[in-house]
């Protein structure tokens, strides 16, 4: 479709762009504005469970009364209560630790995939993608039977005589980290593999010819060149992990506080919609930091490449 100067052509192009843009503004962008607004509201035992409500009929006066009734008390609560501070820090710590583990586990895997024969590569990519599309809930649930005290892992370790009594893994931080690593592994491996597969194999070979050991060639040549894929993959894991709900809920103990879980219980158990909204805003703020940082790094890399 080259640009079509006729009015019909212009209309067509406007529709192609406009329809998805309109949908996403309406159902992705506007909802954030609503969340922001409700995070400034006060919970109420009413339908809907927050106040103030905008009185459209009252015109300018109604609008002013509405704006005046908004305040920052939910944010004051988030800042003042140790529970929410801990939840925010715990979320960042879990997401950060799991991202680091994923980088360590996923890099050798992505590299091995990139070194496989072209035929094998197609198969391996499919093998990594299938679990990625398989129900998240079910994949996390599957770990309960493995990690619980009388579960398969403990049975195997006991039988091998490696441990004297069952390890507590389920309902502990270790359980959450295992779940996060497991569920997000494809998110890290696939973008990293995509970059590694395009690397010129002559480069690490040249390093080896010049006397570098294989480990050294990998660390000084391959890894720096793969950095865009690694940072993209780490970001793809980190962002949703900060807001993760299912994994801490099923594999973490009742005391595992992550923001996604706090938001969930404020909304469903306490019916405090304004506070849940404030938690959502906080989560977005925490996520935006790494994204901006990443874009800065990316731009510098692009500039260096030029």
């Amino acid at each position, binding site marked *: 479709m080259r640009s079509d100067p006729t009015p019909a052509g212009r209309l067509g192009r406007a529709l192609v762009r406009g329809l998805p843009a309109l949908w996403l503004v309406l159902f992705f962008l506007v909802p954030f504005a609503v969340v922001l607004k409700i995070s400034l509201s006060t919970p109420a035992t009413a339908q809907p469970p927050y106040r103030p409500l905008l009185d459209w009929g009252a015109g300018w006066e109604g609008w002013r009364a509405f704006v005046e009734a908004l305040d920052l008390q939910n944010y004051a609560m988030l800042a003042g209560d140790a529970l929410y501070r801990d939840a925010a820090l715990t979320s960042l710590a879990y997401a950060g630790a799991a991202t680091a583990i994923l980088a360590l586990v996923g890099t050798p895997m992505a590299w091995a995939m990139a070194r496989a024969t072209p035929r094998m590569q197609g198969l391996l990519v499919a093998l990594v993608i*299938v679990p990625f599309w398989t129900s998240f809930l079910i994949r996390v649930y599957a770990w309960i039977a493995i990690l619980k005290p009388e579960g398969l892992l403990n049975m195997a370790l006991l039988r091998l005589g490696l441990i004297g009594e069952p390890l507590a893994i389920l309902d502990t931080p270790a359980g959450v980290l295992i779940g996060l690593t497991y569920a997000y592994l494809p998110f890290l491996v696939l973008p990293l593999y995509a970059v590694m597969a395009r690397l010129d194999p002559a480069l690490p070979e040249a390093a080896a010819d010049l006397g570098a050991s294989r480990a050294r060639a990998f660390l000084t040549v391959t890894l720096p060149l793969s950095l865009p894929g690694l940072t993209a993959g780490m970001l793809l894991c980190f962002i949703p992990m900060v807001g993760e709900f299912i994994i801490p809920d099923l594999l973490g103990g009742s005391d595992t506080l992550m923001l996604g879980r706090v938001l969930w219980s404020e909304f469903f158990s306490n019916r405090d919609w304004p506070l849940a909204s404030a938690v959502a805003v906080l989560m977005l703020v925490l996520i935006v930091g790494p994204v901006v940082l990443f874009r800065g790094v990316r731009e510098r890399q692009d500039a260096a490449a030029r």
Partner: protein
Amino acid sequence: MSPLNRIALGLGLAFLYGPILVLVAYSFNASRLVTVWGGFSTRWYGVLLADDALIASALVSLKVASASAAVATVLGTLAALALDRHGRFAGRAAFTGLVLAPMVMPEVVTGLSLLLLFVGIGLERGLASIVIAHATFAAGFVAVVVGARLKGLDRALEEAAADLGAPSWRVFSTITLPLIAPSLAAGFLLAFTLSLDDLVIASFVSGPGATTLPMRLYSQVRLGVNPEINAASTLLVAGVTALVLAASWLTGRGDRTA
């Protein structure tokens, strides 16, 4: 591949597939205890088929998945066309962000924000609200799949048709669309499985009478491991795997005919 690479791959794949295989194996366990093997049995599949509430929720999920995947395919394809064909239009960066951001947004945020919107505009919560929510977050995935295909397309075919006097809509419907059709089908299937899998967003935006399969499974999973869930999960995993294989076969076939 060096032995070290083989080990990395073997461990990685065992890690990815082990838990799923354990789950599938124990769905055929005669014993009610999840960790004790009581012999091979399909009794839990019988229990499953007699569970009317579970079947009803599966039907809800299938309806929602079909409708939301259809909408997501249209939106995602249009977005991919705009990104691939419209060059540097005003607001391109914002448009790209808008299409891709829903893919990484934490689900609790997407779910909560859409629910608040629906309450605000007075949309009744039920099937329709879940369809809208799923279409919104799946559209980006469709755009990525279709975009990859558009990028690999030989432009000369479209230019030849245009040079022969075909108007742009005709070039699109007779040349472009048939060539990208496999990726549309793949995108549809992926959007379908995303919808079928989603627990968090559906929990926020659903209303009475619209309980999806993951919502139903989750309410049982919270009570602990039980073999009936293993059986249901096995069927779901089998279904999703079949859809993914179909999708990757479609994309692969498209690549070869191009």
